[in-house]
């Protein structure tokens, strides 16, 4: 510090007064700033009060509602799920994953303050999703950030009727804020409509809470109502589905009621059906286990009725029936056997025989036998009488192996084989597949969840088998618009995509007019 003597000149009082005036001025400024600060604070507090009900801003007549209850907490986990790898790279779904993983291109704090509670999506248009209405509750900071954002030049004010909306030119989105509630849509009409809902069209808080009700830890819950889309409206009503992303899997749950017309069509198949304990399916590319509490002929009739007039196999094809029509004994045995097959039926596509005269899918089925008056096994019919030529398609029963076979054409992949197996009868279109399956003891496991239908698919192996089969036709030029190179180019991305998928499993059940479906896509570790 300097030791210099300070000398003051001039009017002392004037100097004093000047000093005081300056001090008073500073005090005034301070008071003003303080006042402004408190005023701003007050305004911020006041303007960002959470006084609006989200239930009052969502229409109650939307065709669908989608709710992500823990969006903020689950966002990163969803984005990191390996299940996304099953989606082709070219798919626009990847933009969702990208948006989730890079926080929509925004700062973390901002995202955390914009998405404070459950996130809701709803709309009428289920075909093009042109009127999706996005709604979420922001934090106070989020609400303030919006207010700051609204000052940006790219945000314009736009009036729709008497409602003032903000419009983001760069993205084409409209948005509005009521209290801490943010509403966004591409459709100004949908947004304005939400802001001006009459009381009778408001969803209400209870219904809103119901939307977020979920089975287990679903990340996404969706409810469909009857209007909005033809394809949904024609088949089911009051449909709901939920989705969950796990680190290596993706699960969905669906439930809905068939509409009247479909209820009638499905009646022969579903009437009186309740979920049943299902036996574990046979191994294969595509495996099915089902129990509709019906015999095989009844099940077939049910499927044919549900399918409608275009059902390709309305009656048993000649090539299946003819062998059993060769003699009266075989005919009686075949009819009796068919009547007693069921209700638990397991069906699998075991493989596609690429070396057959034409690529041939090989199927196998294991059918429970209804206990009363079951056909005798082994069949008490003469075994392979001398004089049968290889062209003769009469069934042959081999006492040693206890197997019944029907010689047809080509090799083992077209040699239907029957055998007693487990609690019923095993049937395969292929003797080779039969050999492989019958070599191991029958599976006695019961699936953990009772259902009426269970399906398991190994996507990569299945696609690979069909690709190689189809390629043989392509190489001969028998598939339109493809040569081997273009066919390979078309299929390879899907094959590569499927490489990481372990399986897709789905189970469906019907009870009290409601269809429930659970499906899971699992990725390889």
């Amino acid at each position, binding site marked *: 510090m300097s030791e210099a003597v300070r000398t003051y000149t001039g009017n002392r009082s004037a100097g004093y007064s000047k000093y005081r005036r300056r001090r008073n001025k500073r005090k005034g400024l301070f008071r003003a700033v303080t006042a402004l600060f408190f005023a701003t604070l007050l305004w911020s507090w006041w303007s960002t009060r959470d006084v609006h009900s989200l239930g009052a801003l969502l229409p109650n007549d939307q065709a669908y509602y989608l709710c992500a209850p823990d969006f903020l907490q689950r966002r990163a986990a969803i984005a990191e799920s390996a299940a996304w790898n099953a989606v082709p790279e070219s798919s626009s779904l990847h933009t969702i994953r990208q948006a989730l993983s890079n926080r929509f291109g925004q700062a973390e704090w901002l995202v955390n303050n914009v998405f404070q509670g459950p996130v809701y999506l709803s709309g009428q248009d289920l075909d093009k999703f042109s009127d999706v209405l996005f709604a979420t509750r922001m934090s106070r900071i989020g609400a303030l950030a919006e207010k700051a954002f609204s000052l940006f030049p790219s945000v314009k004010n736009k009036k729709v009727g008497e409602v003032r909306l903000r419009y983001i030119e760069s993205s084409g989105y409209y948005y509005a804020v009521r209290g801490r509630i943010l509403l966004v849509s591409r459709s100004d009409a949908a947004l304005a409509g939400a802001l001006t809902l009459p009381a009778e069209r408001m969803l209400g808080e209870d219904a809103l809470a119901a939307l977020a009700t979920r089975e287990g830890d679903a990340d996404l819950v969706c409810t469909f109502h009857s209007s909005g889309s033809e394809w949904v409206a024609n088949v089911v009503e009051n449909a709901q589905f939920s989705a969950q992303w796990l680190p290596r899997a993706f699960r969905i749950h669906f439930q809905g009621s068939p509409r009247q017309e479909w209820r009638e069509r499905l009646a022969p198949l579903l009437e009186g059906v309740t979920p049943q304990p299902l036996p574990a399916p046979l191994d294969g590319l595509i495996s099915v286990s089902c129990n509709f509490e019906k015999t095989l002929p009844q099940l077939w009739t049910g499927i044919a009725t549900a399918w409608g007039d275009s059902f390709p196999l309305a009656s048993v094809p000649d090539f299946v029936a003819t062998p059993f029509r060769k003699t009266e004994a075989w005919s009686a045995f075949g009819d009796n056997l068919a009547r007693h097959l069921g209700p638990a039926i397991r069906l699998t596509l075991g493989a596609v*025989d690429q*070396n*057959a*005269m*034409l690529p041939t899918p090989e199927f196998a089925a294991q059918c429970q036998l209804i206990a009363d008056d079951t056909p005798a096994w082994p069949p008490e019919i003469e075994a392979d009488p001398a004089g049968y*030529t*290889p*062209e003769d398609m009469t069934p042959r029963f081999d006492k040693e192996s206890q197997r019944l076979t029907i*010689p047809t*054409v*080509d*090799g083992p*992949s077209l040699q239907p084989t029957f055998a007693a197996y487990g609690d019923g009868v095993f049937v395969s279109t292929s003797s080779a597949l039969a050999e492989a399956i019958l070599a191991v003891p029958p599976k006695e496991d019961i699936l953990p969840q009772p259902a009426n239908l269970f399906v398991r698919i190994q996507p990569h192996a299945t696609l690979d088998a069909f690709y190689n089969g189809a390629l*043989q*036709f392509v*190489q*001969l*030029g*028998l*598939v*339109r618009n493809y040569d081997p190179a273009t066919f390979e180019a078309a299929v390879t991305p899907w094959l590569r995509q499927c490489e990481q998928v372990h399986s897709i499993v789905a189970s469906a059940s019907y009870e009290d007019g409601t269809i429930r479906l659970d499906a899971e896509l699992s990725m390889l570790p």
Partner: protein
Amino acid sequence: MDVVHFPYSGVSFAGYWRWFLGPIYKNILIRLALIVILQTGGALALEAGSAKVEITGPLGAPLNGYGDRMGRGATSVHDPLWARALYLDDGTTKVFLVSTDLCVINPELRERVLALAPAEVPKDNIILVATHTHSAQGAMIKQHPFRFVSGRFMPEVLESTARGIAQSMHEAYNRRRRAAIGFGTAKQDDLSANRRYRSGPVDEQIGVILVEDADGNAISVVANFAAHPTSVPDSDHYTYSADYPGFYCDDIEKGAAEGCVALFLNGAEGNQTITAPKGTDGWERTEAVGRLLADRVRATANKLTCGEATLHTACVRPELPPALGAAYAPTQTFLQTLEINDLLMAFVPGEACVELALELRNRALQRGYQSQFTVGLANDYAMYFVARAHYADLTYESVCSNYGPGMEDWFYREFGKLMQKGDAPPASLTPPAQSREIPGAMVLRLEGEPYALGYQRGRHFATEITALYQSRVFQPLNGGRLFPDTGFWSYWPKFMNPTPLSLPVLGMASHKWLTGISVPLMREIEGMAEGAGLPFDAVWLLQNSGHITATQDKPLLFQAPFCTIFAAVGDRAGADQLLVGRNLDWNEKDPPVVTEVYPAEGQPFIQVGFAWNEGLFTGMNAAALVVALERNPLQPVPVRSGLPLEFLLRSILQDCQQVSEAVPLVEASPDLAGYHVLIAGFTEKGAPEAVVLSREPSTAAREAEKGLLLGTLPSDANADPDTVKRYVRVLEQLEEERIIGREEIERVLSNVESSNGGADAIWNPTTRHSVVFAPKQRTLYVAFPKEDGRPGPYTAMTLKGTPEHE
């Protein structure tokens, strides 16, 4: 029996050594000189070895040869199957000759065998032959659609069979020892017959090769005999058997020294089968033929003298002629020859019909070979090789021949290149066609042999013909328009394209329309196809495309009012004595072409039509004979049973001089229904004559009334209304003319008057050319539509040539 003595020694191999090691003091210098001579030829150290290995496939594997088995597996073994290998080495050339009891040698099998074969022998010197038994394992062909005959593909069967074959080669190589060889021929004496034609040709020759060791023991006896091994009884349709070659080999091997391996090489068995000696049937017949063959071979071999040999092999991988079945028919194959001194063995990659083998033998003998054996089913399988003369026959062999009638020439040409002796005939060069322009059209001058005529035309219009083929055959077929709505083809789902299969099937089916075609015409179409760079069947389908389309009840070419033809005859034609007018109505807008044809044989002639044969219904020859044709649109297009009518008219122009010669040819045509053919000319005495022939319902020949002959009478109740109107106009304009001159006819033909927008006009929107024939002057006046569709000017063209009646 014709025994060929070994040229060097005249004694057996063992005798040769005894002679050589005799008293040294005798003629020692002479013998040394002989050694030098023989060594110079490099043929002093023949080694040979033989072996056989069983290759019977497993039970359950499909058998090859019959499609009706549908891939069902074998159920039993009647007699085992073998691979028999003979190794030959003259010190310079090492060869494996391997005969297998299989139906064919397919590429997958050959490739695998070559990979496993002894490395000491060059791959190109390995000759793999199938005996063609139809009772051996299939399962070795991966390619579709051959799996329908050979059954499912079983890699394990391919591998075990290939290993067996390769093992026989290794063992034969390991058993090689000093050897001598001789060859000869015998007459097969009623062991085989032509299976297609009762009196058809048969290969009477059995080729025999004997290979002996130094002790005179047979190492191998090789027989070359042409007949299908398809004699296994129906009751044993699923039984393994080597068929009659198995009995032959068994008989020879049992009768010879231990270790002797009998090889059976099938010949040009395409249309040859075995007989039934002494009325035998079933297995007895099979065995009888095998053993009788062995007797004849043994008798010949016993008379053979063996000695040293010079071996020479040659091979080529030529492109095959283009085929419609591009998806499955190979485009390249493998031809091989083996020469043992003066014996030429030609190895055919498929089933040659006997006519080809006999002609190849003639050619080989002419080039200095002492003997020639044709061996079929060797190294590859390009299906049947059929003689041109039988390509038109709807036989199994002809429909299984993918490469057109020109395959016969290809066969001689390619094997000719492989022969060491003599010179291959020089390839003939066809000069390009000459062309010039006349108003509205092109005039093309063709000259030479039938093939040259076709080639010139095909070459000149290659682009147009290819485009026509695409638009009229390929695209309609590809678009499903030529498929029947029922049956096999109707089951194909939309995303599948049956064209690669249906096109060759349609090509095969079209052979029936070649029935009755003359060889020169066939040659001309071959030339056309080659000139245009298309398969023969493609060109033939194009020729018949209109017919195919029309008979599917989807008319494309036959929906127009079809032509106007009339003639003024005698005094009514004034000094010309005969004038013919015709307008051709044709629905397609093909560019008009006038073709002057100067064939090597027959009459020069001129035709007015298009680049392509279809629609060539207007012509005149140097003998002043005029032909023109019209169709009655009311008559349905008949399903044709023979040659297209264009070819009938063409034959008349080339071969006939008077109307009286042409009329029987037209009347004999089975396909005249719905057509009117006008034929006009001069009698031997120079009198003009003209007739219109039709078959509605029976054949009728109508002559001129009052010097005027119309293609259709206006009073004809069977004629369609537009045609009647046209002819009424013709009559109205001409009946008042006492003398009808060329100008009057041109005026009538150019008449565009119409009451319904053109369909009933003499010159209507579909008229493609208008011609006035003045036969006496060998002149025709041709006009073509101008751009606006109206008649263009008439241009005079005179045909050079000397009519005989003048």
